[in-house]
């Protein structure tokens, strides 16, 4: 694969980011679904689950992202428990449970996302991929970045996402026979089940003013 040309890499800030995204688009074609460049900030791209590993290779070899930041997942479903501050004696609260994804959109509840960067050129890319709801599986990134190993293990036990080709998806934190995936939104915060949020009785109205009021100097 041809590397990003030096002319592009010499560009400042946002022009470089444009170059990175177009290089990804050229290499991945249909695999790249959406991209977002926030001026003077960052790059977000979303790829298909099939193109996930390929996108990693392109980022590493073509774009020059040699540094592995992290890999994790987001559960976009709003928590059915709200902020775990419900009064257990009151009737269950009505909540808007519609799923709304963040930057670069998405179609599934679960998304895997990772952050890689270029050490020499000082830019980073946040890359996301939809994980099918029915069978939450995606390719491993270990052949791309060896450091993804532990991140994928953590992601597997916390979100229940499987990684094709990962040699060892043992739990890192939880007991082996633990059931459920704690970071999923439908997994309750157990501390609040044992003892309901004490704030529901303690809370007092703030003296004066509403949300819009600003702090006096």
């Amino acid at each position, binding site marked *: 694969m041809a590397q990003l040309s030096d002319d592009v890499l010499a560009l400042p800030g946002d022009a470089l980011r444009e170059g990175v995204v177009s290089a990804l688009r050229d290499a991945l074609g249909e695999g790249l679904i959406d991209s977002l460049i926030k001026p003077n900030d960052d790059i977000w791209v979303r790829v298909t689950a099939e193109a996930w590993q390929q996108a990693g290779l392109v980022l590493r070899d073509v774009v020059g992202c040699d540094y592995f930041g*992290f890999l994790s997942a987001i559960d976009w479903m709003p*928590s059915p428990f709200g902020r775990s*501050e419900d009064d257990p004696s009151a009737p269950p609260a009505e909540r808007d449970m519609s799923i709304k994804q963040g930057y670069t959109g998405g179609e599934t509840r679960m998304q895997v996302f990772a952050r890689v960067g270029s050490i020499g050129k*000082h830019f*980073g890319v*946040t890359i996301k991929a939809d994980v099918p709801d029915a069978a939450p599986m995606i390719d491993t990134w270990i052949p791309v970045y060896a450091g993804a190993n532990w991140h994928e293990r953590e992601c597997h036990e916390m979100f229940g996402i499987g990684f094709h080709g990962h040699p060892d998806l043992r739990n890192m*934190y939880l007991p082996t026979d633990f059931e459920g995936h704690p970071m999923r939104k439908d997994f309750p*915060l157990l501390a*609040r089940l044992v003892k309901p949020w004490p704030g529901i009785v303690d809370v007092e109205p703030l003296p004066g003013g509403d949300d819009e009021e600003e702090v006096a100097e």
Partner: protein
Amino acid sequence: MTDIADRQKLSYIAAQAADARLNVELETEGMTLNIGPQHPATHGTLRIIVRLDGEQVIWAEPSAGYMHRGYEKLTEVRTFPQVTALVNRIDWLGSFANEVPFILAAEKLMDIEAPPRAQWIRTILFELSRIANVSLFLGDLGVQLGAITPVFMAFRDREYVLNLIESATGGRFHPNFDRIGGLKDDLPEGWLTETKQVMKKLRNFCDEIENLLFGNEIFQSRLRGIGVIPADVAKQYGLSGANLRASGVDWDLRRDQKLPLAYDEIDFKVWTHPDGDSFARCWIRLQETREATKIVDQLIDGIPSGPVMAKVPRIIKVPEGEAWVSTENPLGEMGYYVVSKGDLGPFRVKIRSASFNNISIVPWVLRGVYVPDIISILASLYFILGDIDR
């Protein structure tokens, strides 16, 4: 002194030899050795299971998770200002430094910036946490290699820094001082003068440690050429901070990115070392502590006056969006990926802590080393358990 390429070759050959030994018929009987979870070299409760052949490690597996507190889940039921009290406890030796990237991420989403004086005070306290954190490392390093004296010196001098942090923030270990839009308070009177004096003491401490430890022949022979990590492997595993710079990678987030902190206004040197061995990692940290005292001195000289808090709403709602901010913390790159849905609290916070990546290289780096080197390699990689388990 052997050349770096030779050392890498030697460690590669050692790893290959360990592999080969598994496969020959005359295989010696292996032994599984369990180190930790309670071991002085584990800075908390990291357990490492190693498979030995004679005195050589053929396989190693760290087993973290004895201190997992689930902060990522807990942040989802906290409001934005409450999160700092949690993240303080991630790297407990440099707590203030944990608050800064989270607050910066929230400020980025709200599109506000702290006033200049708050940014400078943040930077001073950030560097003080680095000094408090790494000075303890320098003392502890001695203990792990069999020298007792340095740790007393480290605790003595770290106390001065902790006193400074306490008198400014009210908390020795968990300041919880950073607010969205600025800081809780201004600095107390006379604090800056006192800080300058303490920085002098800390520079003396660095000199003492350099003479006592780094010039010591035993110390050098325990660390030189041990646990070599080449630059490309370090980057693949996402090593950061001193561990990456010790492999010759010139990368420092204080210098290499634009953040509303005061690092642009001052001069400092980013130390690197070409060797990538345990000695290089320790040496970089020593130089960085000394550099941090100079950074603090410069910041004190240039600190602007003015308010320490921007105008922010009384009840903080962070607009919808996603932000990633990472800073060069004492242990390496510490970052927060914050997803907000316009609510009082974050929707999802991914905490990228430095030690998690720094320790994930352990199975790779321990292959082929000898038992006493396990301790010195772990010591030189320098991790805090709270920073691995979160």
